[in-house]
């Protein structure tokens, strides 16, 4: 969405005149964020508001998000529905087969009613089928949905409550907009993150500079008079400084070579960010402005320039502003220097540098140039380069944005020539760009390098650690940004998404144009080339999520920009399009990190969508803070909003909102992991417990002439899911921590264990189903063989059918509850209360239910059945036997699995935090260990 043109018409009505008509073009349009300058007010009409804003047009409708767990539930449900129907069918069929035998249909003791006799055979079959469906319908865990919803709703409070998510700056904690996706947080495979405001604070800070090969690092204390101090760089010339003139020249260059404007009436808080602007005492300016300096604000198209100007200010050179082509500088001696601005040679991404030509008071004409090292170095003397290159490279590896500064003194002739060339080129009607470029290149030669700067785009707190943890947990991190490539790349380095040894595969407009051939061809060629490199030659990845940390394995990073991406996605040939897309995806999937720069908001969503719909349907997560991230937040499976400074748009459209990027780690690694394990267990357990609940009832049909005789009393049938077995699993699904939170946070790799819906795939489902079948068979036939002689009491009296059902039911309730107890790894008092409480409640209820003649019941079926059952030693023995036998396989499995499993359950995180798979990686990058927060310093 670009506003390329605007056509409008304005009718001006005055009292007595003819209405005048004026045409309006793009030059009459003020875009969002424009600031008023040089005038008190303007009159205007707001256009493109509301739904017509770029933001709204980029907005995609909010669609229902459903988690992978829910999809699994639906698949399982289908299986159980099939089981239900087939059970009913089997029973119906067998019933009529059985009834065909002589004497079985209507024995004399069991006459049919008249109505039954009159009913049509097929109708009877149908009603029988329906009756069986009703009898077995408990196999469909309806109550699971209630419990799942409750678990999700209540469980999401733990995110809101988590005090680790509380940010004292904004006085807010995490926000949960939907509780449907808690478990999805444990399944994320792709993380799409916005750069500005998410990875970085969008807050440039001048870190250090290098003047003539000497390193200067600003110390906040600023105790020295000149504000400078030399840090111990790796260079041999320790504690030395460049000459005073060189310093001054460098700082002057910083003060002059920019397009920054001074915002005079900056209100408090507007111009200053985290107290960057220092006080320079005794600053007085011809009595004109006498006020503390901290109010000075700068406006520029690029935050880097502001950072540089501010950096220069800290060293004593303050840029006071541009007044009618005169740039005023306050130098270290509190003298005002005035320079006449002659020309600005604008920045463009191809040249990657900018220059200004100024004339000093003394009449010297100077050219100051700053730009990327790659574009400056060829234009200066080689010996100067050698002195500075090490600094620049070191700074670059540390993730700073580096700029080199050069200058050149122009003689009068040279200037006249350049001036003429520039003027001519600017007025040219044809090929203006090329002509300008030629003049620029001509002017910016033979310069001498003064120094280099390092500016840090301040990363969010613990951004690098967070990203590292995400990558360590097997997630692929894609940075989607609207920023230009260089900026984004340096951020990626700073966040350790790209490492020193990462081989970057670039697919940008620049690389496409390198070959000088048609873009399309080049694209094709590059894609194939990269594909060969990253996919075919790479050693086959093990099981998809595992990633080798060994240094021998080449890491790849992929960089693509918006224009190229749209070529990949919307190729002119349809056949190519899908091919490019799959090549692109395959390359990306084999890269450790992918950087997409120069993206429009909708393109971000497109990328997310493409990955989301790729093979295997990986779970995607988008995180962003601004309105331009909304579409990608909405598109991804899980959208995370950061409660940043850029308004609430992202927060409102997100599924979860957190105050800082660093919270993402705990949100995913701890909360997500636990939620997933909890709900997965909940789902499997529910299916299991309903299967072994209803299977005995099904088996009983074979022994009661397929007459739909329920095995359990109606009260038990109803209460089973509601009261007897619901609370323990709910408590489990809210409180379980099979691995404690600290360990989860320390071992990012644990996250991989549950990747790809590991606990809800068909394997585990089959295990649980078989377990349910095993238990069901055991319960029924165990009691069946006991009842081969129904005289189970020591007084010789016999038990009837309700005693049979009650014994089975007692075994059932105890077994499923104890099975859960066996699975519980985290016994809080709530778990104890609920598990033992449920069992006690069952016993209590059974006594109560069987202890009273209930006036509203037509049949007092269970009257004293439970109590009588307990008076029988055999019943006790069979209950104990069956419970133990049912749980035996589980106990065995737990014990036998343990020696092989990870020793991750220890409470002490001491060993795990230092050891573990991350350590080789950490040691491989000593240089990158420069940390961005205090905590990380202490860790290493």
């Amino acid at each position, binding site marked *: 969405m670009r506003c390329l043109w605007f056509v409008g018409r304005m009718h001006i009505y005055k009292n007595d005149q003819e209405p005048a008509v004026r045409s309006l073009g793009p030059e009459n349009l003020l875009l969002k964020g424009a600031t008023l300058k040089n005038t008190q007010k303007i009159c205007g009409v707001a256009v493109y508001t509301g739904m017509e804003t770029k933001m709204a047009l980029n907005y995609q409708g909010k669609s229902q998000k459903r988690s992978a767990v829910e999809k699994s539930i639906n698949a399982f449900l289908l299986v159980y529905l099939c089981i239900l129907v087939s059970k009913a069918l089997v029973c119906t069929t067998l019933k009529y087969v059985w009834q065909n035998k002589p004497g079985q249909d209507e024995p004399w003791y069991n006459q049919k*009613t008249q109505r039954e006799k009159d009913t049509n055979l097929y109708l009877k079959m149908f009603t029988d089928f329906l009756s069986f469906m009703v009898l077995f319908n408990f196999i469909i865990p309806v109550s699971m949905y209630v419990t799942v919803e409750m678990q999700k709703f209540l469980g999401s409070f733990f995110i809101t409550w988590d005090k680790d998510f509380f940010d004292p700056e904004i006085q807010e904690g995490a926000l949960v907009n939907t509780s449907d996706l808690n478990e999805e947080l444990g399944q994320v495979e792709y993380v799409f993150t916005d750069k500005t405001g998410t990875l970085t604070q969008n807050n440039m800070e001048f870190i250090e500079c290098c003047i003539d090969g000497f390193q200067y690092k600003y110390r906040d204390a600023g105790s020295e008079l000149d504000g400078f101090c030399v840090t111990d760089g790796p260079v041999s010339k320790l504690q030395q400084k460049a000459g005073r003139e060189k310093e001054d020249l460098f700082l002057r260059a910083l003060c002059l070579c920019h397009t920054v404007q001074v915002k005079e009436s900056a209100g408090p808080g507007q111009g200053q960010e985290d107290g960057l602007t220092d006080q320079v005492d005794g600053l007085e300016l011809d009595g004109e402005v006498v006020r503390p300096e901290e109010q000075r604000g700068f406006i520029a198209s690029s935050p880097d320039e502001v950072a540089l100007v501010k950096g220069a200010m800290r060293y004593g050179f303050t840029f006071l502003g541009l007044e009618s082509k005169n740039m005023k500088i306050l130098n270290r001696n509190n003298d005002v220097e005035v320079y006449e601005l002659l020309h600005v040679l604008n920045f463009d991404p191809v040249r990657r540098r900018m220059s200004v030509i100024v004339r000093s008071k003394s009449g010297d004409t100077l050219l100051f140039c700053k730009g990327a090292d790659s574009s400056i170095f060829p234009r200066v003397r080689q010996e100067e380069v050698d002195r500075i290159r090490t600094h620049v490279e070191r700074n670059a590896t540390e993730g700073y944005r580096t700029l080199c500064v050069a200058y050149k003194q122009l003689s009068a002739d040279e200037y006249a020539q350049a001036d003429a060339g520039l003027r001519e080129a600017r007025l040219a009607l044809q090929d203006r760009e090329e002509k300008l470029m030629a003049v620029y290149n001509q002017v910016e030669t033979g310069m001498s390098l003064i120094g280099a700067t390092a500016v840090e785009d301040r990363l969010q707190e613990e951004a690098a650690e967070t990203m590292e943890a995400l990558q360590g947990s097997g997630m692929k991190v894609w940075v989607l940004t609207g920023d230009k490539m260089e900026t984004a790349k340096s951020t990626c380095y700073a966040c350790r998404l790209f490492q020193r040894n990462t081989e970057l595969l670039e697919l940008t407009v620049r690389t496409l144009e390198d070959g000088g051939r048609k873009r399309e061809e080049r694209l094709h060629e590059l894609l194939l080339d990269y594909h060969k490199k990253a996919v075919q030659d790479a050693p086959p990845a093990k099981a998809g999520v595992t990633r080798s940390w060994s240094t021998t394995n080449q890491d790849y990073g992929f960089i693509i920009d918006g224009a190229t991406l749209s070529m990949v996605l919307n190729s002119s040939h349809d056949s190519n399009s899908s091919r490019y897309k799959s090549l692109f995806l395959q390359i990306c999937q084999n890269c450790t990190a992918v950087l997409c720069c120069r993206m429009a908001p909708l393109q971000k969503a497109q990328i997310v969508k493409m990955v989301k719909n790729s093979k295997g349907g990986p779970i995607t997560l988008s995180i962003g803070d601004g309105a331009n991230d909304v579409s990608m937040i909405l598109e991804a499976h899980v959208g995370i909003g950061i409660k940043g400074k850029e308004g609430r748009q992202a927060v409102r459209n997100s599924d979860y909102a957190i105050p800082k990027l660093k919270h993402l780690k705990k949100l995913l690694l701890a909360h997500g992991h636990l939620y997933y394990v909890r709900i997965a267990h909940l789902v499997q357990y529910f299916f299991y417990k309903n299967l072994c609940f209803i299977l005995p009832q099904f088996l009983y049909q074979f022994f*009661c002439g397929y007459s739909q005789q329920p095995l359990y009393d109606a009260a038990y049938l109803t209460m089973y899911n509601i009261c007897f077995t619901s609370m323990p699993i709910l408590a489990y699904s809210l409180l379980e921590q099979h691995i404690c939170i600290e360990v989860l946070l320390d071992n990012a790799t644990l996250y991989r264990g549950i990747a790809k819906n590991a606990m809800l795939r068909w394997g585990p489902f089959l295990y649980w189903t078989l377990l349910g079948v095993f238990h069901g068979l055991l319960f029924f036939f165990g009691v069946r063989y006991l009842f081969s002689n129904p005289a189970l009491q020591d007084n010789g009296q*016999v038990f009837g059918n309700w005693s049979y059902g009650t014994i089975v039911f007692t075994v059932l309730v105890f077994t499923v509850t104890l099975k859960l107890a066996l699975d519980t790894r985290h016994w809080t008092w709530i778990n104890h209360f609920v598990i033992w409480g449920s069992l006690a409640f069952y016993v209590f209820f059974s006594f109560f239910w069987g202890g009273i003649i209930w006036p509203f019941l037509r049949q007092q079926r269970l*009257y004293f059945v439970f109590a009588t059952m307990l008076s029988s030693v055999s019943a006790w023995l069979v209950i104990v036997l069956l419970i133990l036998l049912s749980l035996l396989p589980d106990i065995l499995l737990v014990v036998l699995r343990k020696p092989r499993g990870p020793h991750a359950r220890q409470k002490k995180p001491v060993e795990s935090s230092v050891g573990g798979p991350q350590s080789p990686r950490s040691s491989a990058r000593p240089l990158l260990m420069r940390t961005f927060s205090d905590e990380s310093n202490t860790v290493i």
Partner: protein
Amino acid sequence: MVKEEPEFVNRPDNTAFTQQRLPAWQPMLSAGIVIPGFVLIGLAFIGIGIALFVTSQNIQVLEKDYTGVELNSPCYKCSDSNVKNCECKLDFSLDKLFEGPVFFYYGLSNYFQNYRRYGVSRDDDQLSGDLANFKEPSEDCTPYQYDSNNSPIVPCGSVANSKFNDTFELYQIVNGAKKLVPFDGKGIAWWTDYNVKFRNPDVVPLRNAFNGTVKPIFWSRPAYELDPSDPANNGFVNQDFLVWMRRAALPDFRKLYRRITEGDYATGLPAGNYSLEIAYNYPVLSFDGRKKVVFSNVSWMGGKNQFLGIAYLVIGSMCVVMSMVMLIVYAKFKFPEDE
């Protein structure tokens, strides 16, 4: 955090529950617990199993089928459904003392007392002595709600209607003379059934309560005359009736008929010849059913049941074997370090 944190309004509560830091017990099923546990459980089960098995072995059981399907069966003549009031005699001999108290059961096979339609065909209100349901039995009782003259049937329903009506008398043959073995018909039904659940209406004499009602179609005598010898054993609290009304769980079942607890036979049935005289009334051949009588004594675990003892023995030894296997596995792969 060592330093005092400032208070914030929105700050989430720092409680153990909200921070998911409730103190918790984290059980570890380690080999050190499980192997001895298995051994203990296994040994206990084997112990119980042996006790059960021995007990079960010591229970004496004598089962006799008297359906009369075979030609040489004494009850063959009665198996013809046209013969009314048939009596047959079942002779048997005991070569050693059948220890008492002896319980006398009758058994039916392929008889579906647990059929749903059959099971619901009763009126518990009527059976608890509610006179209103004498006039209008519950709808559930169909097709035994009213008889062909539209008189209410009491007790109504299929279950009551099909009450087992064979009667037995046991004689010991002593020197050619028949000596009646006294049967004790009390205490064969659940205490709560007899005392609470089933009640006769408070009408004296009882037969007046049944005015205007008819006996169940299959019955030869009305409910209030079920036991002429004991007036307290009539109506709905007749022990045989109570036993019948408690539906069996499986199609092959036995029900307690009498106990032998009195007189010379309180210690059991001495060795010798016996004759069981059967009033053969109950038809079962139409649905391919079987009838049998069972003499049995019982122990603390109830009647003879080999299953329980064997199951305990098997599982007990399984536990022991598994603990051995685990021990070997652990010895080979070393105990986990956390021991």
